[in-house]
Structure formats: C-alpha cells, structure tokens
C-alpha cells in the first residue's frame, strides 16, 4: 500500500508538474503567452457556459414536468460516453506508451502496484472531466427538486463511482490486447492498430446505443412530445442494459431505503470491477508493458531497413519525420485517430436508417437542401474538410517532436527554411488523407454532387495549406523540446491547442465574411471566388511569415 502511494505521487507529479506549468511560464509570464492563455480560457469558459446554460434549462424544465429521471439519465450517459473515449486514450498512453515503464520495472515494486497507480492517474483524470459535466447538473436537479442533504451525498458518491465502469472496461480490453501484441514481431503496428480499434469500438458502442434510442423513438410515432410527457419507463429500460447506470439513477431518484440500497449496489459493482481488473493485471500487465519497450530486430536483413540511396535534403527531412511519426505508437495513434475516426463518426450514424429519420438530422438536411446553390455548399464543405484537417496534431507538434534531437536542425548544413518546408511537406500526407476521407464521406454517405465536392476540395486544399502553415509556425516559435516521453510531446503540448484555436479563428473569420457577403445578396459564385482568393492570400502570407519566423526562432532556440 505504501508503494502504491509513492508511485502514485510520482506519477501525478510527472504528469502535472512537468507539462503545463513549466511549458507556459518558462521565462516569466510573457505577454504573448498570457494573451493566448486568456484566449484559451475564454473559449473554455464559453463552451462550459453553453453546456451549463443547457443543463440549467433542461433540469428546470424537466423538474417542472416531474421528469428529472430523464435529466439524470442524459447527464450520466453523457458522462459515461465522454469518459469512455477520452479515458481509453489516456489509459493506453499512461499504461503502455510512457517511457517510464523501464525505470519502474527496476524498482522493487509489484507490477500490479504500478498498474494500480497508473490506473488511478487515469481515474483522477476521468473524474476531473466528468466533474465538469455532471456535478453542475446534479446540483441543478437537487435545487429544482428541493432535495435534502442525502441527495447531495449520493450525488458525490455517484460521481466518484460511475466512471469506474468506462475505466475498467478500457483497462480490461487493453490488458489482453497489449499482452498479445508482445507475441507479434511488428508490435508497434499491432499496438497502434489495436488501440485505434479499441477507441473505434467504444464509439461504435455509443452509436449503437443512440441508434437504439432512435429506433425506440420511431416505434412511438407520437414523437418527442409524447416521449417527454409520457413515461420515464423508456429510459429505465435502456438504463437497465447498463447496471451501474441503472443503480446510479435509482439511487438518485428513489426514496430512502431503496435508494441507499442501490447506491450500495453501485459501490459494490464498482469495487468488483476494480478487483477483477487488478487481478487480471497481475497476470497480463507486466509483459504487455515491457513488450512495448523491446524493439523488433529483423531476421531478414536484406529486405527491411533500406539500402543506400540518395535523396534531396528536403525529401530526406520529410521522410525522416514520417518514419519517426509512424514508428512511435503514441504519435501514430494520435495522428491517425483523427483521420480514421472521422468516417466512423460520420458514416455509421448516417448509414443507420434510424438516424436519417431523426428530426434533428432531417432538419439539418433540409437546411442544406435549401441551400441549393452549388457554390455555397462548396464553401461549407471546404470549410468542414479544412477543419477536420486542422484538428490533427501532426503538424502543430512537428518541431516539438524533435525533442533532444533538435540540435541536428542547427548543426546540419541545410537552411532552416528548407527544414521547415520539409516538415510542411511531410504533413501534407495527413491533410491529403483527411481530404480524401471527406470526399469519400461526401460522395458515399451524403451524396453531394461532383461539382460541390470538386470545388470544396479545391478550397479545402488552400485552407489546409494556410492552417498547417500557421500551426507549424506556432510550434516553431515556441516548441516544447524538453520532454522525456513522446506522450508529452504530442498530447501534453499546449501548441496543439493553440494550433486548433488558430484554425478555428481563421475558419470562423472566413465563414463570417462569407455569411455577410451572402446576406448582402451577393451571388454564391462571387462569394466563393472571394473566399477562395482570401484563403489563397492567407496561405501565401502565412508561408512567408513561417519562413521568416522559423529562421529567427531556430537561430534563437538553444537546445
């Protein structure tokens, strides 16, 4: 037990202390850093503000209708789904892809203790995320339902226990997965693909649940109103499929003895899940974690590993970056996930019949259909494709990922501008993949016309150049080079956030201009041309800016 707390404290220090605080306030709070931080905070506050406003009105309305059960169902289900996805990624990186596995393996501590400490770190992260979502909602319901102290106590227990379900499920799924990758030769690839599958599986589960909900809706043709004022039985039935959710809901809504019994059941289920996970970890964790450290050596020397061949410096840098990216599981997982998740997120709900009859989706489709103008639709399509590409953290961490090797950038006799353009070039692989994915979705699933797709793709390409260039420049100006573990370079890197923010700002600005122009009754064709030209100007000027900024930054950075 003492070991557990020692390892846990070390893990928490390593996660919190190193990444955020040091990166942001290295040489005193610089004005620019502070400004960006404020912008991020404003964005976060406004998103949360929107969420909480929604929660407030939902819980008040539902309380008036004596339907708080539904409010709680929605809140808890949302919490479960969010922690499923974010928790799985976090857990995988903490357990298997962190470089301290080796150091910890040397210590006289049992692997299951290390596993427990690391899982606790993931758990703390999950209750942190879920607190943001669920605690205000629980409080609103408590206020509007005029609940006593008992309710709030139960709420706290529910908050602390409910996330053990997604957590243990991801742990249970990853333990055998990582154990078996040890049996393969190319275990890096297997680990990446397996990790992606795992996340995909959870998203599929989420989609399945929501489509079940939609099917049930369909069978009740009296539609939403009927549902809302009808019975809570429907939600109870769904909740029963997930016992911990059912126990939690019962604990919060039933009276007295019954509710406490359910709370007890919830606690017992959580503890049982934890116990089972811990037990299995004894058998499977050590080999799984250690196997990620070993490196595969090829038996057939003549084939793998390349041969002597010359390339131009720009290609050499780009290829080197791509090789390292694809061979480092955390990098591959994070950059490929965005591309691969995209169609899964969009195709599955689109394909399932029930979703197409969903009134919300219908509404969106009608709006889109109303915009019959090819050029307007191409604008929207191009913007969305560029946004998806902007969500990828491959380019916004390209310089940071050099880490301790950054000094080569300065030693090698290749101009800094060539080296930064090479990074832009290697990233084009990801932009291209995202754009192609979007084309497939648009053609197969949404049935957009060829003209829209062609024009939109053209716009998306120009926008992608602008966005990638800006994101890369941000990383070049203040890269995070002092990391000991690749997870820190790509996941705990503020530049990812700033990069996404910059992409969002650019797209919102262009979108706003387009909206204004369209409202001035300008023709879609003219607006498209104007936006396209503006994007091209943004791309060219950001390229010029990057060249200057990178040259200055690389000269200044002393690593």
């Amino acid at each position, binding site marked *: 037990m003492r070991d557990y707390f020692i390892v846990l404290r070390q893990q928490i220090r390593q996660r919190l202390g190193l990444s955020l605080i040091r990166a942001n306030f290295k040489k005193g709070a610089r004005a620019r850093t502070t400004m960006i931080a404020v912008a991020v905070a404003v964005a976060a506050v406004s998103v949360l503000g929107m969420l909480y406003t929604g929660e407030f009105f939902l819980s008040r309305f539902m309380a008036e209708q004596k339907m708080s059960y539904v409010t709680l169902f929605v809140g808890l289900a949302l919490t479960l789904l969010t922690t499923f996805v974010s928790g799985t990624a976090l857990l995988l990186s903490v357990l298997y892809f962190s470089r301290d596995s080796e150091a910890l393996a040397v210590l006289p501590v049992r692997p299951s203790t290390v596993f427990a400490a690391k899982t606790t770190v993931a758990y703390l992260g999950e209750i942190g995320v879920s607190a943001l979502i669920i605690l205000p909602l629980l409080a609103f319901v408590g206020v509007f339902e005029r609940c006593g102290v008992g309710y709030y106590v139960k709420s706290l227990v529910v908050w602390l226990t409910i996330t053990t379900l997604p957590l243990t499920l991801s742990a249970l799924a990853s333990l055998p997965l990582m154990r078996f990758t040890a049996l393969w030769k190319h275990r890096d690839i297997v680990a990446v693909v397996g990790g992606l599958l795992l996340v995909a599986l959870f998203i599929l589960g989420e989609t399945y649940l929501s489509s079940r909900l939609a099917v049930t809706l369909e069978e009740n043709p009296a539609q939403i109103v009927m549902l809302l004022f009808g019975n809570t039985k429907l939600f109870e039935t769904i909740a029963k499929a997930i016992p911990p959710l059912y126990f939690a809901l019962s604990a919060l809504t039933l009276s007295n003895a019954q509710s406490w019994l359910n709370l007890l059941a919830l606690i017992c289920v959580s503890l049982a899940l934890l116990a089972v996970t811990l037990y299995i970890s004894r058998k499977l964790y050590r080999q799984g974690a250690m196997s990620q450290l070993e*490196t595969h*050596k090829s038996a057939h*020397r003549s084939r793998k590993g390349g041969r002597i061949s010359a*390339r131009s410096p720009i290609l050499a*840098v780009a290829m080197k970056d791509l090789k390292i990216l694809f061979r480092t599981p955390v990098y591959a997982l994070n950059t490929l996930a965005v591309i691969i998740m995209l169609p899964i997120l969009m195709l599955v709900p689109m394909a399932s019949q029930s979703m197409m009859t969903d009134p919300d989706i219908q509404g969106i489709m009608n709006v889109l259909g109303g915009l019959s103008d090819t050029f307007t639709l191409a604008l929207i399509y191009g913007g969305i494709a560029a946004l998806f590409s902007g969500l990828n953290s491959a380019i916004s961490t390209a310089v940071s990922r050099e880490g301790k*090797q950054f*000094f080569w950038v300065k030693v090698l*006799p290749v101009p800094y501008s060539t080296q930064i353009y090479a990074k832009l070039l290697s990233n084009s692989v990801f932009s291209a993949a995202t754009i192609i994915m979007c084309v497939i979705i648009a053609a197969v699933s949404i049935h957009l016309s060829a003209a829209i797709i062609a024009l939109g793709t053209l716009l998306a390409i120009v926008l992608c150049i602008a966005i990638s260039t800006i994101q890369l420049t941000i990383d070049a100006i203040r890269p995070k080079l002092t990391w000991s573990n690749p997870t820190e370079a790509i996941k705990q890197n503020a530049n990812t956030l700033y990069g996404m923010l910059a992409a969002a700002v650019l797209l919102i600005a262009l979108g706003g201009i387009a909206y204004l122009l369209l409202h001035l009754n300008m023709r879609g064709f003219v607006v498209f041309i104007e936006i396209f030209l503006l994007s091209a100007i943004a791309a060219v000027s950001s390229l010029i800016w990057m060249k200057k900024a990178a040259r200055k930054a690389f000269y200044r950075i002393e690593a």
Partner: protein
Amino acid sequence: MLVIKNIAKTYAKSNKPAVDSLSMNIRAGELYGFIGPNGAGKTTTIKMMTGILSPDSGDVLIGGQKINGTQAEQIAAKRLIGYVPDAQDAYDRLTGLEYLNFMADMYRVSEDDRTRAIPKYTELFGIADALRDPVRSYSRGMKQKLTITGALLHNPKLFILDEPMVGLDPHSAHQLKLIMRERVNSGGTVFFSTHVLDVAERLCDRIGIINQGKLIAEGTLEEINDARLNASLDKSIKAEKRTLSGATLEQIFLELTEQNEEAE
C-alpha cells in the same frame, strides 16, 4: 581552419559565465585536444563552434566562414564540419542505415561516395551487421560508433568530437584514434574534447586546457610544461617542483586546475 575570437557564453538560467573570453586558433592539419574537468565549459565551447549555441560575444570562424554570420556563411561553415555530439543522440526510431542515409543526404554525399564510406567505417567499428536494426536497439557504444560514422561520411575538413572515447571498447577506441590520425595526415583538422588525459597526451599535436570557462594553457605538451615551470619560477614556488620538468600531462593538469581553484 578554426578561429575562435574572444567568445563568451552565459546560460540563461545561471549568472556565472560557462565560457569566458575564450580565444583559440586551430590550424589546418592539426590534431587538437581540448581538456578540462567536468563542467569546465568544453561542451559549451563545442556547441558554439557547431552553431548550436550563439555566443553572447565574439566570433567563430570555420575555414574563414562565420558560423553565426549570414545564412550563406552559416551553411558554408556547417558543411565543413563533421560533429559527434557527447550524448549518443541519433534518431532512435530510424534504422542505422536510414540514419546514415539521412546524414549523407543532408551533406549531399553522392551515392557512390556513401557506398564506399558506409561499409568502410561500419565494418571497421563492427556495426555493419546491425545497420538494418533500429537505433533504439543499439547499445551505448554502438550508437556512438554510428554517430561517428555519420559525421565522417562527407569527409569533413573539420572533425569535431565531444568526449568521443566515452562508452567505446578498447578496440573501437583504438580504431577511432587511427581514424583521427588518418584524417590529420590527409590534411584534415580534428578537434576533440576529453578528460582521458593519456589519450590526449599521446595523440594530440596541441592541447588546450580549459577550466571554469577560461583557457588556462595551450600548446604542445613541452610548451605547456615550460610555461608552467617559468610561472613557478616567477612565483618562486618551492625548488622541489622544478624537478618535475618531465611531468606527465596528468601532473600538469592537476596542478593547473587546482591552482586555478585556489585563485578563485
């Protein structure tokens, strides 16, 4: 070949200069040993020579080109250098051969030249068989040998090595010494830092001793020894010390670096 004019460097996080008004002039065809205790400023000096750090003041000229000058000058200077860093830092997700190809690409080494140079050095160091394995799977010494090979592919005019003997087995250390000699014999220049004194003593044409960021002695072993004896005479240090006229580098080194500490 390598001219260092009055360079100084103070790290951002410290108030004491790591290198202080240091000047050196290393001639073409010279094998120069740069020695000093831990933390003396050897790595800092070398990083300024290779362009990794910019000096707070002063200049570094490589073959007449300023390493911290205009972009064209920087590139021309860097092209002349082959650099072996102190930590065996190669890109560890690449295979050995991929790493060597990468370095050769950056220095624009032709395919013919690298087909000749890669087997030559890797076989000499006994890492030819491991070239298709990821660098991650290499031992410390193997990584060192790989970075040495990578630095030699373009046949650099100026070969700069930071503590190159650390981690090498006796056989490979011997091979490296031969390579360094051979480069000098064929007109190249070699500059390396070390704290292994007998290597410096036996191998170098000239030696520079650095302590606390300052060059405290420079020249051939005899020159340094003479200077020391003269200094001792001036200060009328005890007569018995005069008997150390044929002192080893170790004795001189210990004496000089200790004196300097007393002076602090």
